[in-house]
């Protein structure tokens, strides 16, 4: 069977003990117990993982908006990768010399109040950490941040309305998982198929979104972007 997301893959690992599992959209398969390395993993599972570059997106956020000294994010405590990404963001904040504040969010209905709480704590920009639940309500992140005047940067390029994003392609990640599924269908054993890690990063600048947020993206960043949306 195929699973999309870490949560679905974790559930499959709990229930399905021997039949093949091919996963996609999993940040870190090792944290959820799929294996110890790309080649040393449970014999019935393989897949394509996508570790989103939170650290690089944070560095880009700092470069784009140097006046912002305090960044923040919502996080879902139930997400298996919450701590993984929080630690990455905290490490990068120390490296960049800025403050990073995280507020827990346990349901889509908590997103808007959560963003407002970050603003109340002095946050000037949102670097939204990856989360399945928060991702399903990402429009509320965009809308609330825009309304209350917070910058928004994402390590995921699939969301619309985000002024600046640096991430990996979930489409390509799913495609890689599909290629693994074909090999399994044709008789290869998952044990013999190493996990495939997405690595091709993509920077997206949305100038229309930036204008709506009242932000100016530096020309040097626009020049490096892989994709520029909206009129210059």
């Amino acid at each position, binding site marked *: 069977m195929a699973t999309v*997301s870490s949560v679905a893959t974790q559930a499959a690992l709990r229930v*399905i003990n021997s039949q093949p599992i091919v996963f996609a959209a999993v940040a870190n398969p090792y944290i959820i117990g799929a294996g110890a390395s790309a080649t040393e993993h449970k014999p019935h599972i393989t897949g394509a993982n996508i570790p989103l570059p939170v650290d690089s997106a944070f560095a880009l956020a700092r470069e784009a908006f140097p006046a912002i000294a305090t960044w923040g994010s919502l996080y879902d405590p139930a997400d298996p990768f919450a701590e993984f990404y929080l630690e990455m963001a905290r490490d990068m904040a120390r490296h960049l010399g800025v403050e990073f504040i995280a507020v827990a969010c346990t349901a889509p209905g908590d997103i808007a109040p959560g963003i407002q709480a970050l603003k109340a704590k002095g946050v000037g920009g949102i670097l939204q950490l990856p989360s399945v639940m928060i991702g399903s309500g990402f429009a509320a992140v965009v809308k609330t941040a825009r309304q209350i005047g917070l910058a928004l940067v994402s390590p995921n390029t699939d969301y619309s309305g985000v002024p600046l994003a640096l991430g990996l392609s979930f*489409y390509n990640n799913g495609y890689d998982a599909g290629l693994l599924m074909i090999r399994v269908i044709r008789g290869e054993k998952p044990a013999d198929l190493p996990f495939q890690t997405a690595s091709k990063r993509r920077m997206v600048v949305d100038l229309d979104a930036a204008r709506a947020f009242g932000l100016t993206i530096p020309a040097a960043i626009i020049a490096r972007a892989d994709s520029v949306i909206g009129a210059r």
Partner: protein
Amino acid sequence: MSRERLARTLPCRLAVVLATLLLGGACGRLGGGDRPAIGFAQITSSAALDQARAGFFQALSDSGYNRDSTLRVLERNAQGDIATLMLIMNEFKQRGWTTWRPCPRWPPKPRSA
């Protein structure tokens, strides 16, 4: 669980339970037919996960595995509900959608005109 969340996920839960009860033991291993069959489970819909799903099925299609013609797919979306997700996994397990008969020569080559 809130009433709103229960109302949102109830149809999906009922479908999974009914499918398991009605088809579980009776139809055997659905992956055992002449076409490969896969179960596909998604926790919820979001821009990122939907992109991954699209890429997954595109890869299969590019290699000749097309849904409903050369590949059977049982797809489930838990709508963000963990309890529903566990029901889905148990459904896949009971219905045999976690397995398939390896088909090294599948799909068949198109016949020349």
